[in-house]
């Protein structure tokens, strides 16, 4: 035997090859970093993170529930988030030029809702929850966004959704 058979490969080369193999066999979710960034941000806010419990199954590219990517085309889709004693349904409609968001919190309660785009040029719009529990943002930011709910009076920690895509 001469030269470069497997018996000549060093331990380190073999371990590197094993690491390369596992990187292919077991890649992380595409949105691993987004999930991390959302957790860091939520931690900074000292808020209660809501959990996504329902979403339109046709939403494209859903690999984990941390970060939902909406389809690129126009349309309407729904999300539902759950927290301790709190549920919110969200409906997003997107046309060519802009998007709107309608929501409904259960139980209905006086709250201020903030819709914030996540990222470098972050912007926030706010509205109030009506007596029926409904709220609306006729025009929304686009891209990765999150909703924050603050009770009036703000007795408890704010509730915040993981980022979702508009």
């Amino acid at each position: 035997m001469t030269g470069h058979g497997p018996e000549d490969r060093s331990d380190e080369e073999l371990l590197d090859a094993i690491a390369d193999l596992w990187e292919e066999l077991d890649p992380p979710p595409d949105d691993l970093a987004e999930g991390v960034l959302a957790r860091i941000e939520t931690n900074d806010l000292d808020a209660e993170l809501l959990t996504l419990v329902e979403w339109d199954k046709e939403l494209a590219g859903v690999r984990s529930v941390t970060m939902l990517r909406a389809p690129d085309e126009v349309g309407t889709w729904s999300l539902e988030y759950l927290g301790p004693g709190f549920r919110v349904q969200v409906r997003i409609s997107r046309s060519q030029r802009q998007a709107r968001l309608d929501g409904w919190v259960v139980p209905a309660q006086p709250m201020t809702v903030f819709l914030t785009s996540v990222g470098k040029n972050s912007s926030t719009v706010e509205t109030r929850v009506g007596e029926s529990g409904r709220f609306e943002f006729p025009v929304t930011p686009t891209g990765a966004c999150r909703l924050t709910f603050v009770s009036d009076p703000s007795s408890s920690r704010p509730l915040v959704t993981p980022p979702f895509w508009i």
Partner: protein
Amino acid sequence: MITFSDVPSSEHGALPDSRSGARWSASAAAFTAWRAGDPDALEELVRLISPTLWQVVRATGVDRATAEDVVQNTWLALVDHADSVTNPMAVAGWLCTTARRDAWRVSKKIKREMATDDDVLGSALPSVAGPEDGLVLAEDKVVLRRCLARIDARCQALLRMLAAGPRPEYAEVSAALQMPVGSIGPTRARCLEKLRTELVSQGAS
């Protein structure tokens, strides 16, 4: 290009392997920028190192959802304890060590709760649950995978763990696999030898 020979191994115990060199220097630069007040640098650091943390954590045998949690908690730990990383070149090693320890702690807890008598970590090839269906591997990887699957599960688990991210210290592996520290070196050598034998018999190059 920064060389790694001047990184004090005593600080965190994990030195970068040759594969991660460029990522390690970039992570040091991003960490330094973040600490100097550039908030975007943290995002860069997260994107750079999270894939490595994923491999380190999954190598301990935890499921994918748990692995995501562990990776997230590791970053929260860095945000809370950034002061304890005094050498920027050590940040990637610090993250990997923190992630590995947390993953082992969690996987022990899960195993206790499931009350299995299985001492083999879940990272052995036949039981892998992950998005590998439909994956097309290069020929050399197909052979390596086949050969790995032919050695015992404990060897597979040990080799995956030793291979992921910066090479872990034996003391850490010892605690996770409940093997005496002194036997890890010989076991590693024995496992690699078994793998070499399989590769030779498969005619690998």
